[in-house]
């Protein structure tokens, strides 16, 4: 309708036409073709909530929203809307106040494109069902109280604020509902970004700053840190983080002990020196067993499995022939050897079947192990790459990533983990990404790349310089990777691709992101803009079958030639297989947690 142009200027309007038919038409114009938004506006208006501004969203990455005016009469319906959306993924609720002009108090609900319709439907429904403040959840209550306090203060001190000639007197509180904990913790530090937003000028009014701090401190005391309504960093989660830290301490200690008990010529000089050596490693074995048992306690692993292993080792030590025995062989066979098949079994179990891991899997692997190194490798993989364990760590932060994914930071807010989280490129397309920071290590699980990409970033400290080793694994190849792409990665076998890359301290994060970008995107995740408009020639298997494999005539495939080719391939496969067996982990050589490559920097 021509007349609706005056209602579609992009500026907020105060009054709707009185006539119902005209009103409906105007609402349709505002809702920009989105029926859910249209219903939301209609329901709000019919329930005494005047709307202020809205947008249906127009692009692949956009933020549709609806703003509603708050007053005493509709307050309970506003609370109901806040309650309905406080925990909806991809949705932000913010309450704002401006003392000048017609805006007053506003509730603005902003969504991502994925959840847009669901969000608007929730507004429609909630606008019909009022709620009292005490019936809402703690996020809504805290937000409302904060907003009320600040609004009252602003009204009370309006003259002072006006006379101060400060610009931009909009006071907006905008907790991203999933990360309300950050509002409480980072309130003043993060004022200039999305969590709680003040126009900077307000901070120069010390009273307002003081008031805000008091309110947030009171809210923090009452509600604690909340994330989606549940407490995080509670005692249980703190304990889990501590247990993981202790595990890494034990891991380091055991590795160092294995190095320390490496026999030298003096240990092997005569029977007497060998006896002395065996005595020493008996004691060291006890202390290593102690470390393993503490891991069992902290991660609810049956300790009998460990005790049995060490009992077997002790028996072999007892049976050692001091006169003729080879202590180096004894050391390797009981402490440091790594069986290649066991290594592959651990990788297969922990990296590919991680979702289905249970203790019987762990028990079987421990039973197969013989040396302390193998036992350590199994436990390390179980603890470090066990998603269930890792996800029970406290969540430090979470943010949206693109329209359909998120990035979550767990564990310890180490410098490296935090930097990876904050610097994660917005245009690096992935599915959900999880970052686990523990000590000087970061574990990442990146969905959407290679089906699921596991990364283990660890720091190596040596006297010359520190550097980082990033080990990786992914299983999804989505058909063939072409030969040149394969060269970018490492070893490919039935489980997937494993490898590692070294980085200097300055480049570790950049190298990490560049690597992630190289890993093939899962189908369906390619951004529209990057999809090739020109498709390369694709042959169909049917075409191949008819035109080549089953072609009749003297120019078709011949059984004698095919037979020769088959024999050739078998012969080559045998040679390659025996070559890979020769290159399997050598006795006494310690293996990394993922991948066979050992950094050769040393």
């Amino acid at each position, binding site marked *: 309708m021509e007349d609706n142009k005056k209602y579609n200027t992009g500026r907020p309007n105060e009054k709707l036409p009185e006539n119902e038919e005209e009103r409906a038409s105007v609402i349709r114009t505002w809702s920009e073709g989105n029926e859910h938004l249209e219903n939301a506006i209609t329901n709000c208006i019919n329930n005494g909530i005047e709307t202020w501004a809205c947008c249906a969203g127009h692009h692949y990455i956009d933020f549709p929203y609806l703003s509603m005016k708050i007053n005493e009469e509709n307050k309970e319906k506003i609370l109901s809307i806040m309650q309905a959306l406080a925990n909806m993924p991809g949705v932000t609720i913010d309450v704002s106040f401006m003392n000048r002009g017609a805006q007053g108090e506003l509730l603005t609900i902003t969504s991502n494109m994925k959840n847009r319709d669901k969000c608007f439907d929730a507004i429609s429904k909630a606008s019909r069902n009022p709620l009292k403040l005490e019936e809402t959840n703690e996020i809504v209550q805290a937000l409302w109280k904060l907003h009320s306090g600040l609004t009252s203060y602003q009204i009370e001190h309006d003259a002072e604020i006006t006379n101060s000639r400060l610009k931009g007197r909009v006071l907006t509180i905008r907790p991203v509902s999933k990360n309300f904990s950050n509002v409480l913790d980072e309130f003043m530090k993060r004022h200039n970004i999305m969590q709680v937003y003040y126009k900077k000028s307000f901070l120069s009014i010390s009273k307002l700053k003081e008031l805000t701090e008091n309110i947030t401190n009171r809210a923090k005391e009452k509600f604690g840190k909340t994330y989606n309504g549940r407490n995080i960093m509670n005692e249980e989660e703190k304990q889990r983080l501590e247990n993981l830290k202790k595990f890494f301490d034990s891991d380091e200690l055991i590795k160092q002990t294995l190095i320390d008990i490496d026999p030298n010529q003096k240990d092997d000089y005569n029977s007497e020196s060998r006896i002395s050596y065996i005595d020493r490693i008996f004691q060291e074995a006890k202390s290593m067993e102690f470390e393993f048992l503490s891991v069992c306690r902290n991660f609810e692993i049956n300790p009998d499995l460990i005790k049995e292993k060490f009992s077997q080792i002790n028996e072999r030590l007892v049976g050692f022939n001091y006169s003729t025995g080879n202590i180096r062989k004894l050391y390797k066979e009981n402490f440091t050897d790594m069986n290649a098949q066991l290594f592959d079994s651990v990788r297969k179990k922990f990296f590919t079947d991680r979702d289905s891991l249970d203790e019987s899997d762990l028990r079987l692997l421990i039973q197969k192990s013989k040396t302390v190194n193998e036992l350590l490798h199994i436990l390390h993989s179980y603890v470090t790459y066990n998603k269930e364990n890792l996800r029970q760590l406290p969540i430090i932060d979470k943010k949206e990533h693109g329209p359909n994914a998120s990035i979550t930071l767990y564990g310890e807010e180490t410098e490296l983990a935090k930097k990876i989280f904050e610097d994660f490129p917005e245009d690096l397309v992935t599915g959900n990404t999880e970052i686990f920071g523990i000590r000087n290590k970061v574990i990442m699980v990146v969905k959407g790349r290679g089906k699921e990409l596991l990364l283990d970033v660890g720091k190596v400290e040596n006297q010359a310089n520190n550097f980082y080793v990033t080990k990786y694994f992914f299983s999804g*190849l*989505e*058909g*063939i990777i*072409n*030969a040149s792409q*394969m060269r970018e990665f490492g*070893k*490919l*076998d*039935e489980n997937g691709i494993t490898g590692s890359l070294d980085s200097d301290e300055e480049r570790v994060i950049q190298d990490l992101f560049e690597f992630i970008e190289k890993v093939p995107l899962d189908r369906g995740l390619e951004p529209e803009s990057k999809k090739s408009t020109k498709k*390369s*020639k*694709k*042959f*169909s*298997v049917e*075409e*191949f*079958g008819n*035109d*080549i*494999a*089953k*072609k*009749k*005539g*003297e120019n*078709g*495939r*011949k*059984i*004698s*030639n*095919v037979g020769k*080719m*088959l024999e*050739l*391939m078998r012969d*080559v*496969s045998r040679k*390659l297989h025996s070559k890979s067996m020769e290159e399997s982990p050598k006795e006494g050589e310690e293996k990394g947690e993922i991948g066979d490559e050992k950094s050769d920097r040393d």
Partner: protein
Amino acid sequence: MKNQIEISNIAKETIEVLNHFDEEFTSKISKTFLNNLYELSKNSNIKVIIDENKELKDQNISEECKDLLSILYYKYIATEEEKTDIIEIWKNNDILYKNSKK
């Protein structure tokens, strides 16, 4: 008997041709086999060119590569009934070829 370079060239050619197949074919091939092909192809310096304007049967692909791809087709794609037919065709083709050389 083929030498190492010839084998590497066949492997590389096969990989590059496979890149141009639908995933209906390539996703069924054993990863270990693909890895072996890749390992073999490392020593090859040939350049494989696929003409986007030509059909598969008109591409300049070596007979050895076609043989290898046919083995893959037989092993991973063909039904049991088809396999019987394929063997018959290959046997007959052999006979026809030998007769034509007499």
